[in-house]
């Protein structure tokens, strides 16, 4: 791997100036909510750091996360960074196939044992490991084997982070997240369906420069998952004024009012979609007129329908409610009967008295 060109050379070869690279590093620094003075440090780390080997495993996934990073027509800086960090194994991106590909993985593992970074996208089926195999090796086995020598794991995409769509009800393969299987390694969850490219690269940059970033209670880097989309949404003023689109083609929708009533999950979804946006800062779902699906949150697929407002209960509450009401009524009737029996018993025990029976006579 050492024969690979260093990042500066790659940048020059692709016509990206030093100034452009430094601007990018500043953007990363700001995205990571780090002090601006640290931008040169990030640049230095990206240019000179140990270039740890990265092994990327894809399990039950749709390749959307890889697409997200490599989507752009022209090679992007993100792409280059992936090249710069020695991406030694990636099903989709590597030229090798078959036995040669697996050998590359084993070779990378051996050469950098205990030091390489493991990136995983996709969930892992545990009901029957045969549901998803690569080169005859089940996902579960490959993950365990590869994770054993990793310095840290980045679970990219909601499938790897929380189980994602394969995990959605009725979860036929018994899909689980990386964190459900590997418990003895640091895991950074970078959920999203897919995640925003700069979020993925920033996390890698942070890892190279400073080590593990600060994580929230769901293992997500706080820099990117610290605030809800709702709090940063440009449609928020309409929400505050109570101006809501009620349909996709009504006055409110045309006027760009809040999509809350159309099922927007922005208020409960933590991500930087509203600020960083997608496709080089072009737009994000709400800007294009569609409610947020909440894809960076666990179980987003099962949260009661994408077009139901958050205030509508999710799940089969009607049946549960009826059953609870029936059980409550039965309990109430039973309680009432018991109370009535108690009262009737007391009435039977009543002995009529006259005024002379109201004193204690001993």
């Amino acid at each position, binding site marked *: 791997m050492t024969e690979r060109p260093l990042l500066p050379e790659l940048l020059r070869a692709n016509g990206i100036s030093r100034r452009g690279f430094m601007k990018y590093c500043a953007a990363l620094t700001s995205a990571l909510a780090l002090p601006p003075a640290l931008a040169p440090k990030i640049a230095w780390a990206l240019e000179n750091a140990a270039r740890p080997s990265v092994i990327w495993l894809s399990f039950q996934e749709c390749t959307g996360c890889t697409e997200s990073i490599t989507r752009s027509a022209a090679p992007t800086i993100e792409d280059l960074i992936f090249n710069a960090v020695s991406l030694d194994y990636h099903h989709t991106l590597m030229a090798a196939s078959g036995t040669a590909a697996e050998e590359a993985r084993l070779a990378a593992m051996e050469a950098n044992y205990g030091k390489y970074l493991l990136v995983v996208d996709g969930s892992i089926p545990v009901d029957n490991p045969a549901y998803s195999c690569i080169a005859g090796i089940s996902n579960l086995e490959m993950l365990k084997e590869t994770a054993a020598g990793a310095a840290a794991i980045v679970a990219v995409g909601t499938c790897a982070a929380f189980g994602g769509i394969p995990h959605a009800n009725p979860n036929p393969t018994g899909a689980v997240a990386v964190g459900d299987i590997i418990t003895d390694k640091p895991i950074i969850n970078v959920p999203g369906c897919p995640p925003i490219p700069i979020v993925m690269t920033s996390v890698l940059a942070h890892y190279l420069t400073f080590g593990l970033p600060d994580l929230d209670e769901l293992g997500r880097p706080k820099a990117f998952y610290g605030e809800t989309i709702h709090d940063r949404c440009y449609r928020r003023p309409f929400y505050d004024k109570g101006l809501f689109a009620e349909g996709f083609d009504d006055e409110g929708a045309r006027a760009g009012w809040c999509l809350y009533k159309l099922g927007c999950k922005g208020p409960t979804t933590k991500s930087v979609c509203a600020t960083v946006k997608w496709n080089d800062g072009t737009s994000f779902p709400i800007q294009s007129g569609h409610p947020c699906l909440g894809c960076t949150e666990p179980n987003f697929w099962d949260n009661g329908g994408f077009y139901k407002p958050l205030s509508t209960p999710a799940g089969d509450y009607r049946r549960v409610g009826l059953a609870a009401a029936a059980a409550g009524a039965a*309990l109430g009737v039973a*309680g009432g009967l*018991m*109370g009535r029996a*108690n*009262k009737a*018993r*007391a*009435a039977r*025990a*009543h*002995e*009529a*008295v*006259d*005024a*002379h*029976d*109201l*004193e*204690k*006579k*001993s």
Partner: protein
Amino acid sequence: MTATLERGLNALREQIDAPVASFFTTCVSCGLCAEACIFYKETGEEKFTPIHKLDLMRRLWANEYTLLGKVKSLLGLGEKITDADLAEWETLVYDSCTMCGRCTLVCPVGNDITLMIRKMREGMSAAGHAPKELVGAAERHSDYGSPMGDLHKALKAQIAHAEKETGIPIELDREGADYMALLSAQEIAEYPGVLAAMSRIFRKAGITWTISTEGFEATNVGVQLGNRDVARTLVSRVVAAAEKLKVKGVISPECGHAYQALRWEGPNLIGKTYDFEVVHIIELLDRLRAEGKLKTKGKDDTRLTFHDPCQINRRGGINREPRNLLGLVAENFVETEDAGTMNWCCGGGGGVGANERAADLRFKAFNRKKRQFEAVGAEKVVTMCAYCHHTLEEQLEEHGMEELEVEGLTELLAEYLDDED
């Protein structure tokens, strides 16, 4: 038979019904009932919060009528009610409550706290925890016909006196009369002038009336004690007397709880509706006024105010009638603050007036009425309950306000009756 804890608890158990269960369930502990209670307001003692006075009944309900309570009781966790508890609550339930009904009126969730006090007294009395004065009165009333003992002779003497004064005969036990009048023991003993007043007013209005020697006592200490067996026995006497004389109506006299007992509790106690009408004397007089059968001449020009008896106004519904009548005869009528349905109790009702132990509390409670009378500069207080009348006189004397005159409304009207033929 003797009163025991077990009899008391059983009596309480009998009293718990759907309204009680819903009242205890819905109480939000807001404390508004405290603000409505004269004993809390004039002493500031939290134990006088009305709903707290019912805590033992609430505890019994929770232990025996709720699911959680039953489970707790099974596990031996429910807090049991002991005789000592009843002894402690006796003063709360009998000394610091006149059953005036203000708390019921202000309760934001509509809990009838007064009704529950009445119910709780059933348990207290059956357990032997009723004030001895009330038990004594109940015994005398049961045995001799009146809480003051045998008043037959006194009644006859007062009737003779009234006949001499007015020259109008009062016929006892007259069958088929329009009305049978009842009297409270307090009137016979202390304010007999009401007899002459009724005699004159009714003759002028062309009403025939009588008094039964078998059921003239209107009071019902069973209602104050909280013992429905006793209350039923006493109310039955009046009902039997009225049925025997085949009267159209029974006149409930100027007495608060008597009206409550006969008009509202009575039919429930005996389990049937009456075949005669029960009318309060002031209600009847206002009816006569409206029909033009009660005419007056001249007016009382003293600065005069009215004290509403709780059981007759707030809990009895007679509010406009006394004011209509006062309009006929009072030149300088002035209302005190809170007059009418939210009037404050004189402090003597619900058996508290007979309870020696409660004398100090009664004295403190009266401060409110005292301030209200002073605020309007009243020279005379008129009322329509002989026991309020008695309490007002007693308390005004205790508070050094003897110059403030107290008078019954019927007597005041008779003073100005235009009965020249």
